[in-house]
């Protein structure tokens, strides 16, 4: 039954793609939402069914048919359900459903309505294939499928030059990671002889993979993950991806697709644990990304870009979790992040909707009295992500930092903690600039200022609810050995590494430090942007170079441009001028000219007169006979 989960949105996408043009908007909305709703229902049923399955018989696998059989290369079209993919299906279909519903309101007046829902359904299908595929090949299909949908949706308003470019950028940057990813898959096929996850697990447990090989493969796979999950050095596409419609940013570029890398690393956790070095690399890249992206978020004025950098930073936290061997904690952060980040994006979309598409925070302010539902939900999201106790983000981020500390990774822990301060700061900078303080709204936008329709606010409320409670499935270990339901649920898939226990007092201390850090960040934001709004200007005046560096995002885009894009473009131009125009075109033109010339010459023999032809025939007979005789 669970194999229907991806197929329903897939079928819906197919129908919309083929017949969408002739279907009324109302029908399109219902079909798109209901297909995801049905998927969500089945996911829930499968989840509860999975709780009853004894751990020994996991994962549940449904093979639909043999897909590729070519010599020793075999791949089935088979879907699997185990705790890891079950959680992912719940997140994808649950958050996806809310975003589908929200989109009905947000995209109501767009002329590409049917196309939008086709892509959105297609994305859901591909993402579910990614998380449910029982072998690496099928997973890669989903991996590429979500990449394609991401490209299509970033460039959804392709008439806009910047949107089309952003789509291309995302696609090309992802390609780099994907090339590494597929290389990793090839290596696995080379050694294991199969892409099946069970076979890979068996091979690792049987000692078929050496540590060096494991490192190579794990690093290649992680390179793929840095592309898809926007980590250093391939994160550059995600901020630009905000050109797409806001619900897309929420679904694809915050909640689901970009976390595919975390899912993949968790899925291959045995490999990373075996390698050791690769795990360390994952942790360090994650920590660096977390702090690097957080600093870039400090100075951005575009509301969606702040959220984009925040997403990069938060995914960095998830990779910290994976890197220090706390895969369950990483997945847990993925789980809670999906709720509060999509909430923040959707609320930001609601703000944009209210302000007729305004994105610049400097032109907002004081919005809390105009947006009575958007404001509190956004605030809940901000509190959750900042790591204030009793909301979901606190539990998951704390779990990651605690594990990092427990594993003795103090450097990573310190970076994470700094990132936490910055997170709290820039999120509340966002809140204060948008909803508090003096109104800086432009007059034409103010005329249409209104709260969003119910179809958009209801998903916000639901997401806010989950942003609060989602953390309670993974309580810290200090509250009891069995408090962390989430981690115990994942145990059959996540093969626990060396367990290091901290003393109870140390753990409480760490929690207190986290809380202090979060509150500290919020307080600084309060001082900077509400209490004495001139402080930021003074700091900018004091450190102009630093501000400029941050404001321009460390010039990474410019460096990449100069280092990779420009040489490539120039080199291509040279090749185009010399090779394409001269050699290839010359060959083709030459062939055509030679053929035409030969035709003209041979045409001279074609007089059209039957006697001439017969004469040649006679000549042939005479020559042939002469040859036979002499």
């Amino acid at each position: 039954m669970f194999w229907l989960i991806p197929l329903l949105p897939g079928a819906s996408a197919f129908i919309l793609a083929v017949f969408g043009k002739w279907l009324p908007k109302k029908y399109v909305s219902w079909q798109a939402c209901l297909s995801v709703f049905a998927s969500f229902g089945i996911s829930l049923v499968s989840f509860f069914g999975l709780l009853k399955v004894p751990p020994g018989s996991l994962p549940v696998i449904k093979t639909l048919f043999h897909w590729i059989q070519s010599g020793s290369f075999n791949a089935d079209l088979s879907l699997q359900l185990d705790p890891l993919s079950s959680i992912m299906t719940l997140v994808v279909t649950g958050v996806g459903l809310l975003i589908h519903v929200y989109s009905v309101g947000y995209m109501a007046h767009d002329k590409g309505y049917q196309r939008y829902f086709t892509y959105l359904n297609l994305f859901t299908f591909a993402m579910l294939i990614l998380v449910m595929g029982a072998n690496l090949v099928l997973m890669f299909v989903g991996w590429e499928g979500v990449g394609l949908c991401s490209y299509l949706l970033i460039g959804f308003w392709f008439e806009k030059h910047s949107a089309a470019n952003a789509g291309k950028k995302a696609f090309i940057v992802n390609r780099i990671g994907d090339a590494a990813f597929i290389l990793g898959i090839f290596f696995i096929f080379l050694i294991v002889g199969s892409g099946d996850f069970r076979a890979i697990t068996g091979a690792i447990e049987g000692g078929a993979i050496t540590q060096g090989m494991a490192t190579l493969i794990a690093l290649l796979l992680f390179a793929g993950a840095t592309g898809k999950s926007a980590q250093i050095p391939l994160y550059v596409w995600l901020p630009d991806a905000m050109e797409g419609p806001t619900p897309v940013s929420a679904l694809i570029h915050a909640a689901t697709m970009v976390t595919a890398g975390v899912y993949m690393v968790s899925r291959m956790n045995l490999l990373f644990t075996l390698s050791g070095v690769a795990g360390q690399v994952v942790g360090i890249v994650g920590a660096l990304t977390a702090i690097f992206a957080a600093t870039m978020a400090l100075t951005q004025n575009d509301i969606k870009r702040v959220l984009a950098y925040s997403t990069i930073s938060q995914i960095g936290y998830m990779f910290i979790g994976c890197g220090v061997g706390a895969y369950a904690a990483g997945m847990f952060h993925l789980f809670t992040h999906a709720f509060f980040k999509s909430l923040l994006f959707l609320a930001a979309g609601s703000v944009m909707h209210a302000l007729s598409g305004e994105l610049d925070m400097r032109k907002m302010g004081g919005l809390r009295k105009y947006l009575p539902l958007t404001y509190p939900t956004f605030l809940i999201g901000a509190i959750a992500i900042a790591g204030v106790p009793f909301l979901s983000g606190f539990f998951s981020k704390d779990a990651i930092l605690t594990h990092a500390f427990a594993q003795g990774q103090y450097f990573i822990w310190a970076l994470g903690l700094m990132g936490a301060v910055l997170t709290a700061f820039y999120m509340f900078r966002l809140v204060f600039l948008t909803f508090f303080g003096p109104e800086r709204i432009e007059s034409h936008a103010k005329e249409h200022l209104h709260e969003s329709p119910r179809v958009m606010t209801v998903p916000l409320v639901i997401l806010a609810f989950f942003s609060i409670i989602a953390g309670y499935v993974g309580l810290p270990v200090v509250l009891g050995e069995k408090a962390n339901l989430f981690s115990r649920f994942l145990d059959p898939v996540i093969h626990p590494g060396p367990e290091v226990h901290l003393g109870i007092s140390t753990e409480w201390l760490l929690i207190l430090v986290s809380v202090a850090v979060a509150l500290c960040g919020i307080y600084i934001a309060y001082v900077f942007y509400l209490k004495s709004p001139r402080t930021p200007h003074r700091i900018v005046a004091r450190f102009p170079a630093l501000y400029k560096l941050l404001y321009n995002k460390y010039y990474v885009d410019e460096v990449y441009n100069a280092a990779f894009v420009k040489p490539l473009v120039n080199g291509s131009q040279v090749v185009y001028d010399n090779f394409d125009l001269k050699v290839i075109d010359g060959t083709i033109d030459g062939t055509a000219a030679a053929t035409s010339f030969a035709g003209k010459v041979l045409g001279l023999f074609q007089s059209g007169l039957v006697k001439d032809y017969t004469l040649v025939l006679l000549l042939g007979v005479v020559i042939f006979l002469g040859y036979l005789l002499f």
Partner: protein
Amino acid sequence: MGIFLFFLLAILCVGGVLGMILSKNQAHNALFLVFAFACLGGLFGLLDAPFIAAVQIIIYAGAIMVLFIFVIMMVNLEQGISPEKKKWTLGLSAVLAVFLLVELGLAVRGMLGSLGRTGGPSIGSPTELGRLLFTDYLYPFEITSVLIIAALVGAIVLVKKKEKE
């Protein structure tokens, strides 16, 4: 007697063909050809092939040439079409024809004497031919009948005027 008859028929036959080549009138051409083919039938008779001789005269001199005459009468617009005027076609074909004649002569030169003479046991009785046609050559015979049907239908379809035109 036999050798005299052969030379008479051979000269008449070649003469008929030459007449066909030299005459400008198409109807005369056809009549020259009938004459040549009739002489050829006589030669077949000398070669102990009485049945084929009869068939030659009935089908060629009778049926096929009548067909030719019909067509000539239907298309006879201009009297006398002069021979080929393109010098090099004519010249080249003549040279090639002579070459071919020489080559063929060289090819059969050594074996002409070994072919024997006419007379001896009879081989071409209609009984014997009929037996062969319906035993050893049954399939070619049947296939030929299909060919004739096809030619018949084809000729009718080609020449028939379309009703609507």
